[in-house]
Each structure stands twice: as structure tokens, then as C-alpha cells.
């Protein structure tokens, strides 16, 4: 214990003795640690956002379809909903809610224009799990699953040159694969963050649609959990309850986003490696000099009876203290930047670009404790490794030679 105090005391004084040199190194460490943490939190923020927006935008954590639906989305590829079966399948899971929907391609005609879109039949009471319940609306929302009016996106309304309260005609295929034309009144015009979302999705009541299309089927069930990520066991429990359906987790339902999500994990470690790699040159350089210029000092210590172990410990603890100080500054700095970026970085100038990557135009950093911990641990290990070898070389010298150095 006494030794520990002695070692710590000596290291701190030694650091102070070379304050100019050490302060420059400290700045380098601070920039490196701070830079890694800030950038990682931005990357993590992007990752979290990708998942959140996928889950929120109708995908949910777990989604099920009839087989072949994804290849040929139509009422013919629907299935009969068994609400009790769904309830049984999700029993015990941390489920926020689930929604059964109809989702089929449709052609929409106003008095003037014709456009293609996806017609989605929803039950508003179930849609607290998705973005549908959080639309900014002009006009009214759907009242119930039997509401036979329609919600249309702002961008689509403009393209169709129609407006709230007007009628539109939708052509789609019914459950026998026959074309069917149905008239709808526009109950509300919604604004979504993404223009392509507004252009491609229109919503009506699910039961009303079933009646109009002469079918009691739905085409998908989406389940949303209370947690951000679905556990594998949760997914398997649902999958095994519906063997006759295609059950997908969000990654299978959105392969591109899943790929990017997984790439991000790799990017974080590559980035950590690059920055610490750059740091290591400066660290080793300084430590070697610090050891070599003190060889006589170490010789003296040895001559008056200090053990080699203690000398090594002293050098190593110098390096670790400096690193820890750098970590404190770096983490503090990154927290300040984090607080400053709290409201997100506005990427709306790149809106369509970030949309292609599945991100939102407000980039919000997300601090993940695990990442910070990895940065701290790896840099401390680096400090120990980088100082241990020069120190060991110094104490291997014969004390007499060292004194004469």
C-alpha cells in the first residue's frame, strides 16, 4: 500500500516536472479520446435512428405475411387473422402492441391525375405502435377500422391536384385477382418527414376495405416491442407459433438497413483502431525519451535500494496517469460537445441522400456506455503496453552503467 502511494506520488511529480512536453501529449490524447467518443456517438445515433425509423414506419420488430406475399403483394396472398392466436404467440413478451393491416398496390385517380401508391387498411386503435398515430394532419384522422374514408400524403395530394374533402377513385385487385374500382373521400392530408413516404402510402379503415374487397383477410401483422431491439428468443417464440406464415424480424424485412446497421459496428472499431494507432507513435516516442533521459536517475534509485519492479511501476503509472487525465478531459470534452449537439445536427440540406440511407434529416448523437468503456479500457491498456517495454529496458541495465550513462 505504501509502495503504491510512493509510486503514484513519484509519477505525478515526474509528470509535472515535464509539464510542457506532457501537456502537448495530453492535448493529443484528449483530442483522440474526445474525437473517438464524439464520432462514435454520432455513428451510434445514426444506427439507432435507422432502427427506430424502420420499426416506427410500419415494419415493427416482427412482421408476418402469407408465403409469397413479398413477391406478389395482393389480397390473394392474404391470410385470415386469428387475434387469439396472435395474443397467444406474444404471451409473456414485452409487447407494446400489434397491428393487423392490409397492404396492397393501388392506382389512385383524382379528377385530373393518376398515380400509383400502396393502399394500407388499418385499425386506428391498433396503430399506436406506428407513425400513423403520430401524423400531423390537416382534416381528420380515421375514426375506426370501419372508416371508409382515406388519408393521403401531402405530396401525393399535390401531384393528384386534389384536396381535403374531395373524392378519389382507387383501382386495385380484390381477393379473386379481379380489378375493382372504389371511391374514397379524403378525410385527412398527412405530413410525413419523408416525401417518398407521403407519395407512396395512403391509409383507410381495414374492415371497410375488407368489405369493399369482399374478403376477411389481412396481408400483414406487425408486432412492436417495448424495447428498442427484439431479442432472438422473442422472435423465435412468435415464429414458431405461426409455422404457416412468413415471420420476419426487422432485419429480414429491411435487409439494406440491417446491412448498414451491422456495418456500423465494424466502422466504430476501425475508427478506434486508426485513432489509437495514430496516438501510439507520439506516446511511444515520448515515453522512450522520458525513460532514456532518466537512466541515471533510475540507476541512483537502484543504488539506494529501490526494486526494479517499483521503477517499472512508476514509469507505467506515469503513462497511465497521463492517459487517465487525457481520458477525463477527452470524455468531458465529448460530453460538452454531446450536450451542444443535443438537439441534433440538421442534415436537411442532404435530405434525399440521408433518406436513401434510411436516416432522418435530424442527426442525433447517442452515447453508448459500452463504447465509452471500450475506448477507456483500450487506451489504458495501450498506455500500459507502451510504457512497460521502455521501463523494463531501463531497469535491465546494470545500476553502475546506468549511473555512468
Amino acid at each position: 500500500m505504501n509502495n503504491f502511494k510512493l509510486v503514484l506520488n513519484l509519477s505525478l511529480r515526474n509528470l509535472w516536472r515535464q509539464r510542457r512536453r506532457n501537456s502537448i501529449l495530453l492535448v493529443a490524447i484528449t483530442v483522440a479520446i474526445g474525437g473517438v467518443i464524439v464520432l462514435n456517438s454520432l455513428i451510434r445515433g445514426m444506427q439507432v435512428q435507422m432502427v427506430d425509423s424502420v420499426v416506427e414506419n410500419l415494419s415493427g420488430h416482427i412482421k408476418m405475411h402469407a408465403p409469397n406475399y413479398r413477391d406478389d403483394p395482393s389480397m390473394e396472398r392474404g391470410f385470415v387473422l386469428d387475434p387469439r392466436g396472435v395474443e397467444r404467440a406474444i404471451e409473456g413478451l414485452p409487447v407494446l402492441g400489434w397491428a393487423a393491416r392490409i397492404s396492397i398496390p393501388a392506382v389512385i385517380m383524382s379528377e385530373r391525375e393518376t398515380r400509383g401508391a400502396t393502399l394500407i387498411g388499418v385499425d386506428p386503435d391498433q396503430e399506436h405502435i406506428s407513425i400513423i398515430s403520430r401524423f400531423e394532419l390537416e382534416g381528420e384522422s380515421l375514426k375506426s377500422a370501419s372508416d371508409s374514408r382515406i388519408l393521403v400524403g401531402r405530396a401525393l395530394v399535390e401531384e393528384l391536384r386534389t384536396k381535403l374533402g374531395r373524392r378519389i377513385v382507387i383501382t386495385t385487385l380484390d381477393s379473386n385477382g379481379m380489378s375493382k374500382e372504389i371511391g374514397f373521400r379524403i378525410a385527412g392530408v398527412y405530413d410525413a418527414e419523408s416525401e417518398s413516404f407521403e407519395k407512396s402510402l395512403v391509409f383507410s379503415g381495414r374492415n371497410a376495405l375488407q368489405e369493399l374487397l369482399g374478403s376477411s383477410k389481412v396481408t400483414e401483422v406487425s408486432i412492436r416491442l417495448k424495447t428498442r431491439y427484439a431479442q432472438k428468443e422473442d422472435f423465435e417464440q412468435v415464429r414458431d407459433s405461426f409455422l404457416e406464415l412468413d415471420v420476419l424480424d426487422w432485419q429480414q424485412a429491411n435487409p439494406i438497413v440491417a446491412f448498414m446497421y451491422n456495418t456500423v459496428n465494424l466502422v466504430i472499431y476501425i475508427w478506434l483502431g486508426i485513432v489509437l494507432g495514430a496516438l501510439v507513435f507520439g506516446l511511444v516516442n515520448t515515453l522512450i525519451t522520458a525513460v532514456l533521459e532518466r537512466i541515471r536517475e533510475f540507476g541512483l534509485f537502484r543504488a539506494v535500494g529501490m526494486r526494479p519492479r517499483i521503477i517499472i511501476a512508476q514509469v507505467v503509472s506515469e503513462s497511465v496517469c497521463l492517459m487517465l487525465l487525457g481520458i477525463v478531459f477527452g470524455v468531458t470534452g465529448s460530453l460538452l460537445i454531446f450536450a451542444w449537439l443535443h438537439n441534433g445536427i440538421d442534415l436537411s440540406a442532404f435530405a434525399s441522400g440521408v433518406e436513401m440511407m434510411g436516416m432522418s434529416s435530424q442527426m442525433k448523437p447517442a452515447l453508448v456506455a459500452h463504447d465509452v468503456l471500450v475506448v477507456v479500457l483500450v487506451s489504458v491498456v495501450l498506455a500500459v503496453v507502451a510504457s512497460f517495454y521502455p521501463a523494463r529496458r531501463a531497469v535491465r541495465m546494470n545500476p553502475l552503467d546506468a549511473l555512468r550513462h
Partner: protein
Amino acid sequence: MLSVTVAWRNLWRNRRRTLLTAGAVGFAVLLVQLGMSFQAGSYEPMVEVSTRFSSGHMQIQRDDYSDDPRVERFVSDSTKLRGELLALPAINAVSSRTETFGLVTKDERSYGALVVGVDPLVDPSTSHLSEQVSRGTYLEDPNSAIIGSALARNLRVDVGDEIVILCSDVDGSVAFVAPTVSGVFETGNDTLDRSLVQVPRELINDALMLGDGAHRVVIMVDQPMLPDRSQGTIAPLVPPTASLLDWRELMPEISQSIRLDKISNGIVYGTLTVIVVLSIANTFVMTMFERTREFGMLRAVGMRNSSIFGMFLTETFLMWLLGVAIGYGLSTCALFPLINFGVGMDSMGMDQFAGLLFLPDRIYPAVDLKVILVAPISIGIGMVLSTMLASIRLYRLSLVDALRYQE
């Protein structure tokens, strides 16, 4: 010359330190160069692939078409315009296209689709779609159509079947064509495969009463990455009510993701450079302290501070040269095979998204002047600043203090 020799020898007085510092420079040069060459190599193919899918490098459209594409907003006399454009030296290919939304019907099934009218003999020079026909043939018959694979499946049609396309003509009345499916294409891009139909332009123009009109006159140029260069020569040919748009405006998602990529990589390179320069500054300061007495001695025998600084700067320059040489050496070794063979998208597991994200099959890193110079120059500037920082001491310390200085 003498000062260079002295500086060179000084460097090797502390071999380990010199190598470590040069190594740091080399490390940064290598990483920045690798990163930048991959960026430089991927942007152009990305633009090329994405523009070949649909938009082309540039387009002439009527002014109000891009905001609200309506059938009646077309550019007239497109064949004449095409001829004039082709006479320009910077232009490789020109193709007129008519575009409208249509209801595609086969028996009782109907789906909405984007119907594009093209000149079958000309369009393949601006678009890769003709090469993506996986079954049947491209538009050979005046009354034929090619259709996306997913749409074909959903409509239950195959090569040889007749489909009916309903759309509205320039007056807003219903028009239709009934071509025979000559081919089915599969691009890998779900949106295109699900909702695109191409027919001969003459066929659809007759039905829509467009004459020789076109909604998009698609232009391919020699230097797509520098659209401003060709715009000047094309501008005089653009009809008064029409405008010239380049791919950056036609596909904002591509140009924006390129810009975003440049910015985020810039931050990464910047941080890396700052860390490396700081560790170099640190080394220089240490060196200056160690050599205080030496510099005092040099001054005592009559050397000026400015000459000592000059020597120090020469050492910095030589160290920089060494570091850059290491960096160039390593990056040449790494880049040489990559430039020749490229990196396949499949090796990164990205081939399945290539169609959707507009990525080419292989990326070949490209080296240009910017790639070669940015890292060495920015690190060089940092090193000169570090030398100046370390040399403050030279001017501060009196000769006597310097000579008496004990480490």
C-alpha cells in the same frame, strides 16, 4: 548544402525517434490516401451506374416539368433538338423520352406503372436497361413493350402476351395502347422491376397526341463529374421554355450522399491529422529541450538564431520527406493491386444491394492529384507550425542560460 548534410546527420543521431516520427507521418499519409482513393474511385462509377439506370447525365425538360410532371408539359421537336445536341463535341449520346403514368392491364388484373416511351435504336446509348432484359428481346417491334420482372409476375404476363396500357393524353382524355410484351427486364432495383414499362416512343406519342414531343431529352456527356463544363456549350440550344438539369439536380440523393460522405470523411481525416501533428509537435519540443546546450554552443561560436532555426526547419523537412516516402511506399504497395483488380462488392457482402444503392460491381480506387497531395501538405503545414512552436525557446533563452542548461 552543408546545412542539409548537418540536418540529415542530426536526424540519425536519434534514429528511433526519427523513425517513429516519420512512421507517424507515413501512417497518416497511408490511411488518408487509401481512404481518399477509394472515395475518388467510387463516386464516378456511382454516378455512372445511377444515371445509366434512369436519369442520364443531363436532361432538357420543360421548366415546370420537374415540379409537377404532367403529360402536356413536353419539349417539342425533340428529334431536331437531338440532332443539334449531337453536333456538340462534349456530348456522347442523346435520347428523347416520353414519360407518363399508366394503368397496365392484363385480363382482369391491373397495376399502376411508369410508362416510358423511348427510341429503341437510340436509347441503349444512354441507358443500360436494354442489357437487363432477362427474357425475350428488347423493343424490336413498333408495337412491343418491355416490362419489369416483378410487374410481370404480378400481372401474370410473359413474353408474347398482349397488355393494355391506359393513360391520359395531352387533353386529359383517356388514351390507350395495346403492345405485346417482347421482353422482361430484371435490374435488381425493386422499384424499377415493380413499376416500369418501356414502349417505343412513337407508339405512346401517337396515343398521347404528343407528335415529336418528349418529356425528357437525356444527354450523356464526356465528363459527367464536371457538368458545369458542358453546360455552357449546351445552354444556347435549350428552348426558351425549357431548362437544362444535370444529374446533381435530377438525382439529388446521389449528389447529397456524395457530399455527406466527403464531409464525414473530411472530419475523420482532420482528426487523424491533428492527432499525428500533435504527437510530432510533442517530439519537436522534447528535441529542443535536449539540444538546448548544443544550440547554445552553436550560438557561442557565432551561428545566428535564424540559422539554427533554418537548420531545425531543414531537419523537419527531411523528416517529412522520409515520412511521406514511407507513406507513399506503403500506399503504392496497397493500391497497386487494388487499382488493377478492384474490390468486388460481393467480398463486402454488398452485391445484393448494388442495384438499390446504385453501386457498381467492383470499385477501383482512383489516384488523382488531390489524393496524392492533401495528406502530405496538411501534415507538412502542421510540422512547420510545430517547428515554430518548439523554436520559441531558442529565442527566449539567453546564450549563458542555454549553455548552462542541465537536463
